[in-house]
């Protein structure tokens, strides 16, 4: 029977498939995502396993090529990585933390990524996000869980005028449509990607 299954190539369909959005907003490529939780005592072992320092301050992002780890709380990290590295990340932690005092949960399909890129990106987000997005208060490399109007998001500043938004799948069309609506107040410049 299994041969029937083997012949199938499942189609992956993201929540924003086919929805028109603001020209400054684009849908991030599919990626591996994990929620990583562990006690303070295990930070060292986890950092060693993953090859990235998790001990940085809350709301900080540790990054290397193909992997970013966003510290969202004292014991919570959001791991974003190349889709292909998914199994390797889990295996590295299993290997490096034999006492299993951690929780790694695959949330690759729970949420989706939206990249907002443009000179008005911070202003557009300020239409729905109550945080201070001034570059001094929310510098590049800062990430936090927050809200965007009526949706919970994780907001990560990847460049002075670029943000990466993580949002649960069922809320993504709302965030997408709201950005489009807000975008009407901000003319798109010629050189905006």
């Amino acid at each position, binding site marked *: 029977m299994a041969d029937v299954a083997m012949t*199938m190539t*499942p189609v992956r369909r993201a929540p924003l498939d086919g929805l028109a959005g603001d020209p400054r907003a684009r849908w991030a490529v599919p990626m591996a995502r994990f929620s990583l939780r562990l006690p303070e005592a295990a930070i060292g072992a986890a950092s060693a396993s993953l090859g990235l320092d998790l001990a940085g301050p809350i709301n900080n992002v540790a990054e290397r090529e193909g992997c970013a780890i966003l510290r969202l709380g004292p014991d919570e990290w959001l791991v974003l990585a190349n889709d292909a590295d998914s199994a390797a990340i889990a295996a590295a932690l299993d290997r490096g933390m034999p006492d299993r005092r951690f929780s790694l949960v695959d949330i690759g399909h729970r949420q989706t990524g939206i990249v907002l890129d443009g000179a008005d990106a911070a202003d557009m987000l300020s239409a*729905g996000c109550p945080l201070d997005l001034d570059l001094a208060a929310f510098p590049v490399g800062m990430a936090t869980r927050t809200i965007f109007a009526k949706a919970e998001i994780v907001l990560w500043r990847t460049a002075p005028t670029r943000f990466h938004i993580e949002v649960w799948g069922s809320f993504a069309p709302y965030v997408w449509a709201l950005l489009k609506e807000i975008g009407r107040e901000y003319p798109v410049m010629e050189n905006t990607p």
Partner: protein
Amino acid sequence: MSEAFRLPDGGRVDRAQPLSFTFDGRRYGGLAGDTIASALLANGVHLVGRSFKYHRPRGIVSAGAEEPNALVGVGRDEAHYTPNLVATQISLYDGLSAVSQNRSPSLERDAGSINDRLWRFFPAGFYYKTFMWPRRAWTRVFEPRIRAMAGLGRAPKAPDAARYAQRYAHCDVLVIGAGPAGLASALAAAEAGARVIICDEQSELGGSLLAETEARIDGLAAQDWLAATLARLGAFDRVTVLPRTIAFGYFPHNMVGLAQDLTGYQGEPDDAAPRGRLWQVRAKQVVIAAGAIERPLVFPDNDRPGIMLADSARIYVERYAVKPGRRAVIFTAHDEAYRAALALHRAGVEIAAIADLRGAPEGAWIDAARAAGLPVRPATTISGTDGQLRVSAAHLAPIADGKVGRAERIECDLVLMSGGFTPSVHLFSQSRGKLRFDPALEAFVPGAPAEASLMAGASAGAQTLEATLATGYDAGDQAAGVSGTAQVRHFAVEAAPLSRGGFLGAVPHGRDPASVRAFVDFQNDVTAKDIKLALAEGFRSIEHVKRYTTTGMATDQGKTSNMNALGIVSETLGRPIPEIGTTTFRMPYTPVPFGYFAGYARGELFEPVRETPIHGWAAERGAVFEDVGQWKRARYFPEPGEDMRAAVARECRAVREAVGIFDASTLGKIEIVGPDAAEFLNRLYVNAWTKLKPGRLRYGVLLREDGFIVDDGVVGRIAEDRFHVTTTTGGAPRVLATMEDYLQTEWPDLNVWLTSTTEQWAVIAVQGPKARDVLAPLVEGADISAASMPHMSVAECRVAGVPARLFRVSFTGELGFEVNVPAEYGRAVWETIFAAGQPHGVVPYGTETMHVLRAEKGYIIVGQETDGTATPEDVGLGWAIGKAKPDFVGKRALARAGMAAQDDRKQLVGVLTEEPGFVLEEGAHLVADPAQKPPMTMLGHVTSSYWSAKLNRSIALAMVRSGRDRLGETLHVPLADRTVRVTLTEPVFYDPEGSRLDG
């Protein structure tokens, strides 16, 4: 189009930009820079409205936000119509269409003015005293008539075509008001390097400087200094300047609400651009530089069109180049009116008299007026005025030895009044700052602040331009807080002499107090007599006087009336004002259209609509959806010609006889991981978890501390340290929050972590005797035969080529599986299963069928059978409790005598109607004796009720007192039109042995 009262030069209006507008259908001309009010005055129009209660003709009183009378409806059509806009605040644009309010058929001939002739029958609180009999006439006659007569404006008849924007903002210093104090503040803060937002309600920044033609600041003419300062502020990139932006509310922790007009002032030419923007500004420091508001004088018939505030009249001359009349009588208790008289005199208005309440006014302004030959009459009052649609004369009477002498009638078309100035402390008071009465100023001024805020300029009691600038700069510097020591900055001000004076209360007039009306609150038609009546009737607290008379309760928030009302109360009761206190200032400072608050939350953006990955398939299939919280769930899938009952019957039959497929993706899911995961579940759920093996499922019941069921769901043990917990669709966020709460506050010692996975998994339920036949060919990595995968087990495998958690579980009573796959593969896997099910007669089914199927089996739904007062025993789930466990949430409550020993608790039972075709209403009550006189003794209520196609009869579940002891009893269900006989049964109607689960 002739603007007969427009001055040939001066002012800040642009004569090169003539505009045309209509008021009540008549066409007028105006200029760019005008407000509706200034343009009307330029055309000699004072009459703009009818009053609230007496329908008295009313004119423009002021030039700003304090305007009580000039409320108009503006908009080219219903979709752009806004009622109750203040004509003194609305910038004129070409083609503007404004209408007056509260009159029928016209301003000049208003039927409601009968009220004015009958005014003696409408004293304060008249509605409390009259219309009491006959009782029934209130709802049918009196109230509808009163409502039709009263009120201001009308709601638009079409949905608002405008869009509204919103923005959060942060700054070091928010400066409210861009008059001299605000500008100096912003300048100081900007120079100190602070991030500054400065907002002002008017079309131009500058406040009082916009009408300042004499004073010089730092050697510059005031308006040149203004231009230089604005240019200076504009050069700071950390300064945001927001004109046409009113600070309407001061919220806790220095959050200030601003409403910015974006295209409303241009008449909303393009619906694609937002009309306005709501700003929610979080400021480290707030500087309130809101200025001061001139008070009217309370004299008989002080409300006729053509009677205005003196300084406002001066603003019309100086800023708008408009003569408010031809011949003016000025009535004052403050020097500022002399300044107004001089300005009007220069503009060519004849000053017939300056009546000063004060016996011997003196000072620079009085000297200047005398030098200009203006007729000053000290110790003089106005005892009345003449005129109907416009004032035509004032009666000036001398006061000597406290007595009012004989009045002299002086013809005029304009009366200007000035009772002095009230610092605008509205926002400071909204912030819960304490007010202090300054006896020298005879005004409430800001005392100790409650927020990080500073007051500056006239709103802090500054009396000269020099002091206004200095306090402004000082406040801005302090607010920026960089230097730590306030910088002293001196502004050299010339030609702006001190103005003094003021009067609170009702002026003496020497007439029979019962026969005159001297208005205190123009917008709510409250007179001095009304306030005295309230006091005579025993009201003492200013808050009670306010509510009884409604003084200060109109949309203008009593800006011009509160202090005079206090003055009357003080004088009548013989108690000083500080003892009487002041009323509460409420937001909004001026009305803000609702659209600002709705913002983007309209239409499809009103609320997030959560759709499952399979939603699109169901929608294409013609499913009827229902709202479950924010989720859309397919309720049933009607075939052509089917109603809900037919569709549900067909779907039920398919599941019972072949196989059905159901989207259960909305089910709440929580991944519980860590060495202490089982222990955590042991403490939380009633069930025992330690012995549950990986690969097995268990139905879990969650209680609150009080022992009542709060949620339920199937829990799968994926590994020793990993559980896949499901919750109800609606309960998911609450359960996760509850778990996190216990974990953080009660058991921080446990090494276990919780992650919401509701949206990680699409859940496809495949249910029915053919379920295995459909799925088996699609599964790899697991044997799903009955022998190796029994009921209540879980396998990690691949389904349709996708990694899956395959649950063998049933909420239908049939052989069933729930396929969990990563959400973005949900649709593809669903389509594959659906295709594979075709030979087996697979049918998609919705939540309605799911409800019927589970009710046939007596499975409860938390929130339907339970209502927050049901224990596991009550609903037949006592078996789930791990009896040997030392503790779990709710255990102690269940053991308490009141709960355990109570023998007449409501228990879950089945209900069968005597008439099989009759489906009971959910919520209906069950009684033993239908002949009992209401209120009957209610034994219980129906919680679920359906037509069961399988059983070919209706079925119902109910919670009934001692229900399990009553099985077989006949009870009665009284309904609106009949009473139905029912029999109580076991709650499991179908396959009570459960053999079908094991198929």
